[in-house]
């Protein structure tokens, strides 16, 4: 008999964690190792005795029975009744306890089982890391993002409910995931800033496609009711204790989670705010900060671009793609854009692409090889994902670098790493958060971005301006591909 004990602390209230874990059949929605799960015999997920029948990513089938469930102790116990893995006599317990010091949650996950002789280590490792630790990480990402995504200032339900020192304003909220009609302007309050916080009056708000994914629920960054938006500029109204890098009246901007930017006023962590130089207007900051920061770390950190390298940029007329073309050509690289129409090809050339390839009888990789004397691209920036990945690998020069920074066409899925040996490829999968999660990193990235803006290396194009109240119209325009350049919302009207 072996025992496995794993525990962690989540920075979210117990109720929020319990809401996720209590659903015995909900693990396929959050656990990375579980692909599909269903309950047998039409029973409910909180019916003691129910059996969940699920599959792991390796294809193994497991059936587990709920033995006890307690909403008082925030605990459930279950056992494996049938499994393709030899976790014999497996019995497990999940229990939550409140950390009253900080409104956090202690989560313990324990089990015992009888592995076949010789497989103790392997199976203990699988359960402890592949199931428990991986589950911790997934639920942490879910609930901590949800906690962060709660509107910083909830809609004022009753006139008498104003908190002391709260500043009234307006925000666009979504009550439930859905279409653009879900975006509604409501009165809110920005609370007086606490330790480490700043309160802003916002002047320009960036609209990004990720906001649409938040609204529809495709990305789990916003749990309704909540305020979408991750990018804005504004003026510091006041600061909480301990904030040293800002002062009242300063012009600032931000481009990061948590969501909540679609508002006239906002109280948020001061560490997330970047002071704006005079050379960058509020509208330009709201239009370029998120995309520009991405372009900066892609070209300077993920891949340190060298003069003379050949770069392939997908969607070169799009938000990040256009900036990559501008910046990479300035850095002395040879830029090839891969796009879908003659109009976009013209826009890519205007942004600095030396060559543009369009879909045709020849494959993307053949066209890239033809343009490079058979060599291929030294680095490829690919945010298309599923539909492009295989072509990108083939279009790489030997020892080339494929930077996969998005998946607009869908998840890339599993890849045999061995196949990368065909050209000694390096693959990176950067995420915005890891390059922008400390004030120091953000300061370094924005310093270079603002300099590039000041030097005219990269340019912001504000294509559309909407009043904040017409956020729904802005989303419709974005989703119907009617926009050109960046779209911003103006809290003060058009």
């Amino acid at each position, binding site marked *: 008999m072996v025992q496995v004990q*794993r525990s962690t602390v989540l920075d979210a209230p117990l109720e929020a964690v319990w809401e996720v874990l209590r659903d015995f059949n909900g693990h396929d929605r959050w656990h990375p190792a579980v692909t599909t799960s269903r309950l047998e015999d039409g029973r409910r997920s909180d019916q003691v005795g129910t059996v969940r029948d699920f599959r792991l990513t390796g294809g193994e089938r497991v059936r587990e029975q709920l033995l006890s469930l307690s909403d008082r102790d925030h605990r459930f116990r279950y056992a494996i009744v049938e499994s393709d893995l030899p976790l014999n006599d497996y019995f497990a317990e999940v229990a939550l306890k409140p*950390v009253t010091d900080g409104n956090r949650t202690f989560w313990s996950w324990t089990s015992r089982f009888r592995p076949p002789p010789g497989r103790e280590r392997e199976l203990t490792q699988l359960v402890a890391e592949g199931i428990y630790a991986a589950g911790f990480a997934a639920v942490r990402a879910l609930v901590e993002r949800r906690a962060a995504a709660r509107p910083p200032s909830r809609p004022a339900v009753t006139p008498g409910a104003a908190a002391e020192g709260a500043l009234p304003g307006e925000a666009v909220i979504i009550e439930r995931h859905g279409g653009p009609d879900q975006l509604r302007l409501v009165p809110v309050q920005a609370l007086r800033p606490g330790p480490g916080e700043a309160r802003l009056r916002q002047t320009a708000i960036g609209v990004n496609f990720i906001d649409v994914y938040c609204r529809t629920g495709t990305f789990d960054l916003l749990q309704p009711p909540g305020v979408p938006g991750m990018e804005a500029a504004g003026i510091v109204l006041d600061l909480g204790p301990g904030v040293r890098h800002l002062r009242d009246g300063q012009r600032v901007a931000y481009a990061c989670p948590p969501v909540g930017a679609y508002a006239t006023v906002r109280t948020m962590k001061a560490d997330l705010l970047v002071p704006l130089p005079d050379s960058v207007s509020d509208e330009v900051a709201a239009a370029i900060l998120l995309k520009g920061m991405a372009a900066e770390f892609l070209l300077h950190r993920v891949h340190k671009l060298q003069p003379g390298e050949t770069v392939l940029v997908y969607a070169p007329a799009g938000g990040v793609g256009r900036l990559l073309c501008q910046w990479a050509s300035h850095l002395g690289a040879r830029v090839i854009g891969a796009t879908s129409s003659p109009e976009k090809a013209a826009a890519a050339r205007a942004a600095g692409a030396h060559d543009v390839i369009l879909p045709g009888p020849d494959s993307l990789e053949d066209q890239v090889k033809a343009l490079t004397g058979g060599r291929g691209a030294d680095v490829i920036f690919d945010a298309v994902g599923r539909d492009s990945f295989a072509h990108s690998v083939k279009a790489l020069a030997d020892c080339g670098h494929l930077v996969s920074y998005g998946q607009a066409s869908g998840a890339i899925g599993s890849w045999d790493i061995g196949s990368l040996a065909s050209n000694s490829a390096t693959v990176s999968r950067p995420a915005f958060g890891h390059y922008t999660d400390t004030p120091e990193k953000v300061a370094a990235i924005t310093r270079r971005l603002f300099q590039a803006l000041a030097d005219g290396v990269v340019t912001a194009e504000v294509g559309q301006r909407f009043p904040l109240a017409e956020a729904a119209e802005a989303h419709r325009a974005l989703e119907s591909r009617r926009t050109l350049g960046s779209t911003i919302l103006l809290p003060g009207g058009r």
Partner: protein
Amino acid sequence: MAEVYTSSVIAAPADRVWARIRDFNGLPNWHPLITESLIEAAAPADQVGCVRAFRLKDGGFIREKLLALSDYDFSCTYTILESPMGVENYVATLKLTPVTDGDRSFAEWSASFDCAPERETELIANIGDNVFQGGFEALKRLFGD
């Protein structure tokens, strides 16, 4: 029956924190409210059933009896025999659980007791905030949180 529950996270492995708090006679070594302590009848401090008599910084005198001690669970349960607090049937447990993710400890301190109904709110706040959370704050400082 009133109940108090306070919990925190200490930035050190449970066995290290336990080594600090296991001594039933050791409150003055880490708890900011307590000045001096002795074990009655010269008993060992880890003898279940022993009684500690200690003084608070505000002068109050308290006697508590060790009901259970577990090096396996990192837990200690005790009852108040005599105190100025005006509580009866007071039983408290201090317990540590390892947080395997990051070498930290989850610390719980809970109590149940009887008292005059009008004093219940005040006593719960005093015990929870000053005695329990105050102790956790001291441990967090001690272990570099």
